[in-house]
């Protein structure tokens, strides 16, 4: 394993560094070569920039919300329109975070970069469709900004009827935006399913796929199966507003709760669109940075699929108080409990992977450990909400707010950051400051808990969500939460600074800085635009036995024992490989 020195006499395999004409970042120049690129890696980078911008914007809105709640009567927005302002700010915060950031964050930004490389393919199956997904994302974002500019949006990210059919704010613009984003998400998912099914090189069997690919696959299934239902729901909502079709409108014999059913039929699976890729990331991070084979590979792989399928059966747990029949609520509650089983399986497997591993506390690993803490809290509090008796009390309180922030921020965002730090050297060919990265991880962990732990208490004491003002008895907890937000913000800025600084000052990254065994570490950092010259030799993605630390050059290398030596690399004559 990694610790010892390189056995002498063996063949060292290391791809070296890319030349400028190979490097996918530099092989063609000019803005147009980016805007019209069909290279999945460049599309991934453009997504990355896009989602981070969205995150920044929505983050500022979050800061406004929290600052406003610093005082019981509201500290930021004043005047007669104060509450309206507050409503708009929390709505846009939620909608942008969910539709523009979290859903595309790992699958579209990192997934686009990683899926083909990890798979050993040259590109995704439909590169043009891939680029159009990105532009659909951009259009969706424009619609959201349009809604913001026009008359805002104050329905909450859930667009519940009947309020959304009666409010004067720009529901149509925002829902059109979400509709378009839905198609972006569908096309990404479709592309990944096809890529994983048909583009695997020889030797890449299903069970040799890195777990990130399993998770992406499961996510894609949800994206393809759930998002169309959101599409039609939003279309019907738009039709309701434009033509008063009456389906959701009691005035015409319609039923507003139908909207909730439709909405959550998508949006509960959508929370797994957010978390499953994070599971995949964490599986890879934990294994690589513990330098130990992942524990229970098949369990983790299958549990992703199980979550994807079970996730379709539990949407009713968002509507326990909306007046469903008692039998229905009981069934939904029971199903909700089953869905937490596969999640727990994963957590135990990660812990077992770390057990007796040789853990390097690198930045990505710090984020991965933070993830395990935070996701566990988030998942367990989900059980309180899935229990009928307690949910009656907790529904629509800050407890729910805390629950979903623990899973979405503590889970998805933290693993997104972990993934970013893990694959950053691969994406941009630069090493960042480890101290800075760890510092960011610690500040984010502390800031996050300071922000959201008090909200569990607030919620269980009865503080309702989505209120601009509150009873003075809640003030202390709210203030702690606001201070936590500031700390969290500082942590995020540190992380951003560390990453951006690495682009300027960072050292050149070796092909395999962490000792990973998956295929992306076998091509140069950054990868050449064609990924692999020839289909790579596919091994076990979690077998670290022939990966060694090369102290001299500060990198990990794959060492092949003498007997396994393939014909040495020689410049091949052109047309030598005419095997097609």
């Amino acid at each position, binding site marked *: 394993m990694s610790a010892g020195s390189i056995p002498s006499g063996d063949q060292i395999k290391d791809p070296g560094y890319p030349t400028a004409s190979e490097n996918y970042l530099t092989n063609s120049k000019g803005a147009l070569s980016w805007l019209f690129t069909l290279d999945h890696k460049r599309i991934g980078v453009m997504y990355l920039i896009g989602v981070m911008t969205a995150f920044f914007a929505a983050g500022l809105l979050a800061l406004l919300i929290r600052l406003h709640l610093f005082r019981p009567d509201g500290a930021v927005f004043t005047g007669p329109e104060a509450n309206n302002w507050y409503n708009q700010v929390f709505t846009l915060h939620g909608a942008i975070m969910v539709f523009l950031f979290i859903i595309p964050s790992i699958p579209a930004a990192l997934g686009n970069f990683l899926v083909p490389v990890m798979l050993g393919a040259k590109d995704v199956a439909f*590169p043009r469709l891939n680029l159009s997904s990105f532009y659909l994302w951009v259009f969706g974002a424009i619609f959201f900004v349009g809604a913001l500019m026009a008359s805002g949006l104050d329905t909450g990210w859930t667009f519940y009827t009947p309020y959304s059919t009666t409010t004067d704010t720009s529901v149509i613009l925002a829902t059109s935006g979400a509709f378009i984003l839905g198609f972006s998400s569908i096309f990404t998912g479709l592309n990944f*399913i096809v890529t994983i099914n*048909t583009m695997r090189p020889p030797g890449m069997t299903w069970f040799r796929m890195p777990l990130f690919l399993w998770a992406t696959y499961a996510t894609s299934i949800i994206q393809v199966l759930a998002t169309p*239902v959101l599409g039609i729901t939003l279309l019907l909502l738009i*039709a309701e507003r434009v*033509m008063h*079709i009456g389906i959701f409108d009691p005035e*015409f014999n319609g039923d507003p709760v139908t909207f909730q059913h*439709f909405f959550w039929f998508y949006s509960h699976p959508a929370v797994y669109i957010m978390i499953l890729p994070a599971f995949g990331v964490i599986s890879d991070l934990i294994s690589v940075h513990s330098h130990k084979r992942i524990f229970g590979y098949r369990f983790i792989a299958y549990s992703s699929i199980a979550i994807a399928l079970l996730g379709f059966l539990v949407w009713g747990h968002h509507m326990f108080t909306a007046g469903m029949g008692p039998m229905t609520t009981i069934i939904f509650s029971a199903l909700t409990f089953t869905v937490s089983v596969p999640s727990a399986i994963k957590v135990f497997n990660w812990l077992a992977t770390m057990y007796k591993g040789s853990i390097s506390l690198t930045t990505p690993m710090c984020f991965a450990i933070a993830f395990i803490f935070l996701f566990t809290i988030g998942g367990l509090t989900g059980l309180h909400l899935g229990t009928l008796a307690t949910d009656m009390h907790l529904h629509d309180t800050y407890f729910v707010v805390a629950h979903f922030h623990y899973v979405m921020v503590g889970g998805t965002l933290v693993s997104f950051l972990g993934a970013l730090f893990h694959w950053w050297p691969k994406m941009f060919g630069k090493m960042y400051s480890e101290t800075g990265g760890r510092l960011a991880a610690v500040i984010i962990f502390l800031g996050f808990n300071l922000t959201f732990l008090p909200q569990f208490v607030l919620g269980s004491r009865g503080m309702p969500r989505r209120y601009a003002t509150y009873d003075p008895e809640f003030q202390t907890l709210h203030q702690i939460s606001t201070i936590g937000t500031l700390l969290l913000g500082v942590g995020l800025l540190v992380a951003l600074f560390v990453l951006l600084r690495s682009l300027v000052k960072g050292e050149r990254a070796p092909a395999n800085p962490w000792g990973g065994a998956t295929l992306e570490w076998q091509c140069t950092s950054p990868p050449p635009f064609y990924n692999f010259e020839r289909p790579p030799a596919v091994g076990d993605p979690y077998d670290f036995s022939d990966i060694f630390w090369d102290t001299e050059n500060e990198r990990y290398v794959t060492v092949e024992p003498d007997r396994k030596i393939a014909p040495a690399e020689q410049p091949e004559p052109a047309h030598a490989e*005419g095997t097609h």
Partner: protein
Amino acid sequence: MSTIEAAAENAHDAHGHDHDHPSFLAHHFDTPEQQFDSGKLGIWLFLVTEILFFSGMFCAYAIFRMLRPDVFEGCSQFLNTKLGAINTGVLLFSSLTMAWAVRCSQVKQDRGLVAMLAATLSCAMIFLGVKAIEYSHKWEMGLLPAGLYFYDPANPHPESHTNYLFYICLPFMILLGGVVAWLVVSLATRNKFHVQCAMPLTVAAACFFVGIGLGMVLESGGSEHAADEYQAHATTELEQTAAIQLVSSGESEVLESLATESNTGIQSELSARQRQLENAGTAIVQEGDEIAGAIVSVEENVMTQRKAGVFFSIYYCMTGVHAIHILVGIGFLVWLLVRAVRQDFNPQYFGPVDYVGLYWHLVDLIWIYLFPLLYLIR
């Protein structure tokens, strides 16, 4: 973009890669089979999303049919079964021609392929023509989605109305004019390729008006009577509507005066109250003086805005989204037709025809469900 591809090729050269990729094989695929399989899986997944997309509306249909079977029965009388049946036949036939087109592309019968694609396109246009007649007729009668509904049984054909049919036909007239002009110009310049493209497209565009004609003939002798008969049987209880009135208690008057334009909260509160009262219907005896004599009727009139409206909302949503799919399909078929004239397809590369074919069959299949659900079940 060209720069990227050029660069890609250079680099591949440098790495000793081969160039036996046929022109139709994208660079990231190894074999035509892999490319075809990818496309096939992709289109199947896309069809799954389409089915789920429609499933939302099928659910809405099921829910409201369950809640108000009488409304659905009463309203479906207004849909003209003959027109629906004609359209079903047209679409079924187009599925046949589409399947045939796929076959032609597989065995490289280029002229057959063009002919079959043109036939499919023509069927699609006939379908739209007939649909245009159906829609415009209903709009004139006021059989519209709930919010816009103004059908009045006493006067089902109000005199002053916009000529909807004209507005629907207008874009198709422009289209027809356009392709005819294209045909004339390309005939004049003797551009063979353009003639070969424009000719079938002209036929297809003209078929829209064949559909219009067909629809007009059938509509005039259509099942309108059925609806009229139904009307005659249904007891005309306008009194029923009278029974549904707001209680004129003091509080609701205050609320009403508060419910100004901007005050949506109170407006919706008011409408909610009204709804409750309406739901309570005639069963509750209310105090207050403005209540007309409560008439409890066994057979109610379903042709009111509140009831029939939702049926027509669902009708328009489902058939409208379906028609949009037909339009998209037409776009794809035109693209295929041009490529077929260019002789792009061969036994190794006929994927696009196959994929569009699958899409087209799905659109047909959805209609096969819509037709009985909306027109036939009574």
